[in-house]
């Protein structure tokens, strides 16, 4: 990590700490949701590093949210316990559902994750007594920490900020770690990865479960904030929005999904006056990027660098664009 980068991070963090005192309460709520989405979008990239793009990630976020709802309904636990518990449950559910999916790859995996995710989501609709059926569950407490009621936006904002910083640090380390390289090796050449001793199914399952673990954290944070969970919030439509963030930003580096989320959050807020026409805009954006800029916004950086000045040895491109077959 060089100095300019460290300075930049410090500036972002300082800005994030000052933000709730500068912007209005509505913007603080948006920033809370943005930070939760930040965990979601970064965690999506973990299985994608091995080449496994999924359509069940939002459902796994839902597993975290429903776990939080169930815990708060039946046990009175601190928010400091519900969040890790929800994450662990989401991680375990993720590990279980990925075992049959591991037999498929690429497009087959994508479709299988769609179907199995839908199965999980339908259990919430089906078992009314446990999960509240089509209307979901309500009455999830906002939580309390050291005597501070997290119902108010500003304390909850800082609570989420701390968790986001922890999660992103961990995921960043993962990206740069040996195990991160192993994931990418699987994406690059599965057969070669096996030949050099990488147990491919094991590591694909591990990457998937790690991704769902963090999605579970995002879900728990969301459930505590909204005070309710609804099966409709975790359907394929929401999933497509997640895909849009990733596609717009790119998935080759750790920063791609973050860029995509920032840009699309602005786009989402600015396009509020469009009302019902908004999905059309987002659908158009998705098509535009997949057709004309498949590497996402992050790939522009490389293109600019290529044009002005030389390129070093570069381990730049890890996962570029959605994994092909």
């Amino acid at each position, binding site marked *: 990590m060089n100095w300019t980068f460290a300075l930049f991070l410090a500036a972002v963090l300082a800005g994030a700490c000052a933000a709730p005192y500068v912007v209005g309460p509505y913007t603080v709520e948006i920033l809370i949701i943005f930070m939760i989405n930040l965990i979601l979008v970064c965690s999506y990239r973990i299985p994608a590093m091995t080449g496994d793009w999924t359509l069940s990630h939002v459902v796994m976020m839902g597993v975290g949210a429903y776990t939080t709802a169930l815990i708060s309904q039946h046990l009175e636990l601190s928010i400091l316990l519900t969040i890790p518990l929800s994450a662990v449950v989401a991680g375990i559910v993720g590990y279980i559902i990925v075992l049959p999916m591991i037999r498929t790859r690429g497009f087959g995996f994508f479709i299988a994750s769609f179907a199995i995710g839908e199965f999980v989501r339908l*259990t919430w609709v089906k078992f009314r007594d446990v999960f509240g059926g089509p209307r979901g569950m309500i009455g999830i407490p906002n939580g309390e920490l050291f005597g501070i009621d997290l119902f108010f936006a500003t304390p909850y904002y800082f609570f989420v900020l701390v968790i986001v910083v922890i999660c992103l640090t961990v995921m960043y380390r993962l990206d740069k770690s040996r195990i991160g390289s192993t994931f990418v090796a699987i994406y690059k050449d599965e057969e070669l990865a096996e030949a050099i001793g990488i147990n491919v199914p094991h590591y694909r399952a591990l990457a998937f479960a790690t991704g769902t673990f963090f999605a579970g954290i995002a879900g728990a944070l969301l459930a505590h904030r909204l005070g309710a969970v609804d099966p409709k919030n975790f359907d394929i439509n929401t999933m497509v929005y997640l895909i849009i963030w990733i596609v717009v930003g790119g998935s080759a580096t750790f920063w791609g999904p973050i860029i995509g989320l920032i840009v699309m959050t602005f786009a989402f807020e600015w396009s509020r006056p469009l009302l019902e*026409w908004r999905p059309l805009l987002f*659908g158009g954006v998705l098509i535009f990027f997949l057709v004309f800029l498949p590497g996402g916004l992050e790939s522009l950086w490389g293109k600019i660098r290529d044009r002005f000045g030389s390129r070093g040895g570069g381990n730049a491109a890890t996962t570029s664009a959605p994994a092909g077959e």
Partner: protein
Amino acid sequence: MDLATLLQTFANSIVAGSVYAVIAVGLAMAFGVMKMANFAHGEFFMVGAYTVYVFYALMGWPFPAAVLMAIPVVALLGVLTERFIFRPTRENVLAGFMATAGLAFILQVLVGQIWGVGLMRSVPTPYMGAMDVAGARIGWQRVLVIPSAAVMLLALWYFLHHVKAGKALRACAQDPETARLQGININRMTMLAMAISGALAGLAGALMAPIHPVTPYMGHSVILTAFIVVVMGGMESIAGAILAAILLGFVHTFVTTISDAITAQMVGVACMAVVLIVRPQGLLGRVKA
């Protein structure tokens, strides 16, 4: 379950199976030719239903004419999708699939803004009355679906096996490289495949318009079922898609009758998971070397 209910459920299963078959065969065909995976296939179905709504319910055309109008309308949609989405993303299946998810958004918004989002559009039933078999009553409109689906699938089979363009399409699905060397124009074939795929989805939607709630979001329930069928059948296998469609038609209808629609969906998904584990290449799929 008494005899009348059993018969009724049996008949409904065949109706559901026929519709699934027509929808899924279109999806499997597009996937077979250059791996075009269309997420907006359900929205093609929806546009077919709206075509009938516009020409039959609003403009007062005869019902069969309105149904036939769905062919050019949705086939054109298919061709445009091929040209502007699948062709530029050809080397990447997932990219085309995701991009058509964007197309699904666009079609939902357009249709919703033109004809309204709120209440479902009501399409009057053109063929009233019901067939009475041993106490089981099946509406004529439903009965009509079965021969219509059979005619469509037979026409498709004839086209693929006895018409030059159809044979070229099959050759292209089996081995695009060899087909290209034999002078078959791949771009024309992918376009043709998407036209047929769209026409089939549109026809299915058109036939279902009087008995299915017509809303901009009606494609949602269709797409998951269609993909379950195609994955179970073996992705590119048309025969596999038909077999899986009939199986799933029975599973869905019987489970819905015994339990409820959500359980039926869950059982359908579970069937697919089992097929993926036991036989990842699908019921009639081939193992790729």
